[in-house]
């Protein structure tokens, strides 16, 4: 039951990001809901939920995006692995700064995978998607990392506040 709820939430929110957020003014198009969700799952020590998000969101983004099917799935699973490694080996706590760094690291890994893919396209004689004559994709990546980090921190803080508020009323809050 929980698994399917997670799957449906991942699918619905990824579609919302692709079809709805992409039309809104900045910084909404820079938000990556899957990265934020993976970060929150890593913080909550729920790697299975993060893996479901990586698979579902990666598949849907792959069907819609420039890079085609595959790179998005690989990028999100690598982001999950990087965030998990960072959280258990380098970060001492689950502070706001730690959550921000996790989300920013996830965004960086995704961008790095796409850049490597672009490099391979250049080496194979194809037109690159991200590497252009200006720094716009790099600026967009930096903005995305900051926005995703702030959103992850905001949602995590909100979730903690709601949990604290409900703890007095419900047994399993």
């Amino acid at each position, binding site marked *: 039951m929980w698994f399917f709820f997670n799957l449906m939430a991942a699918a619905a929110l990824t579609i919302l990001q692709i*079809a709805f957020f*992409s*039309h809104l003014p900045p910084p909404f198009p820079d938000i990556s809901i899957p990265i934020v969700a993976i970060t929150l799952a890593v913080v909550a020590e729920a790697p299975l939920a993060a893996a479901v998000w990586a698979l579902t969101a990666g598949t849907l983004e792959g069907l819609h995006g420039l890079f085609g099917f595959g790179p998005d799935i690989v990028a999100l*699973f690598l982001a999950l692995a990087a965030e998990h490694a960072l959280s258990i080996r380098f970060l001492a706590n689950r502070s706001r700064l730690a959550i921000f760094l996790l989300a920013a690291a996830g965004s960086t890994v995704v961008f790095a995978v796409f850049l490597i893919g672009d490099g391979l396209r250049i080496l194979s004689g194809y037109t690159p998607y991200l590497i*252009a004559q200006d720094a*716009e994709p790099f600026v967009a990546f930096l903005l*995305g990392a900051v926005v995703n980090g702030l959103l992850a921190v905001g949602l995590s803080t909100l979730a903690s506040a709601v949990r604290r508020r409900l703890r007095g009323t419900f047994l399993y809050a």
Partner: protein
Amino acid sequence: MTPAARSRLIFIAVATGVLLIFFHALGVLRGAEAAVMRGLAPIETVLSGAGRSLKRWVGAPFSVSAIMQENEAVKNERDGLLVQIAQLREKEDENARLREILKFPARQPGRIAVAHVLASAPEAGTHTILLDKGSDDGLLLDMPVMVGDGIIVGKIFKLDKASSLALLLTDTRSRVGAMIHDAAKTQGVVQGKRGLSVEMRLIPQNEVINEGDLVVTSGIEPLVPRGLVIGRVQGIETQERDPFKTATIRPPTSLDDIEVVAIPLP
């Protein structure tokens, strides 16, 4: 859930991802992928419409003075166009009479594919729109994507069975063969500039161009017909030692707010 069971499920998720990529590479999933895209298209059309409406609604109070200025400019342009229409009707009649005398066959209107915009720029830093039509609908790579009766906004950049991505004119990677619609038919290349504007480059220094000149496609590319409107010259940039000059082009329509596009089929 026990740690072992959780590890097993994570392994299954990773393995599913690997298998999906493998089967996609083999082409086994093409039908399923097209079915998913077709199934999602109505939902995405609704969400896209809602996103665009929200953007317009939020932005409306900030753009009142710009809209008023634009309204004034449009009124002036309309007055000029009324005169041009009258002159063109006259020429059309003359053209029809001459065709009849020369027994010249009349031009047949081409077929058009109409596509909805499902999403805008899925990857940050790129300027693309996702369309709900693909190769199954007769689309080919590098076909022009138009709005209205013939205003080019981009070209098909990536093609799948049931969907495609169009690269907008404002994207830095975008290139379109263009000419200035004047007596000299000055040729150049129109390319995007950081997603913000459009420039016409490689205009020889000795060519005379003026602000307000109409820029259209030159027809040099096999799938892009001649005469699709790109925009009007807004500014001209000349450097002393450069053999070419650059013109900034103002597209007649906002490229951020496209809902429906047309693609001329061969």
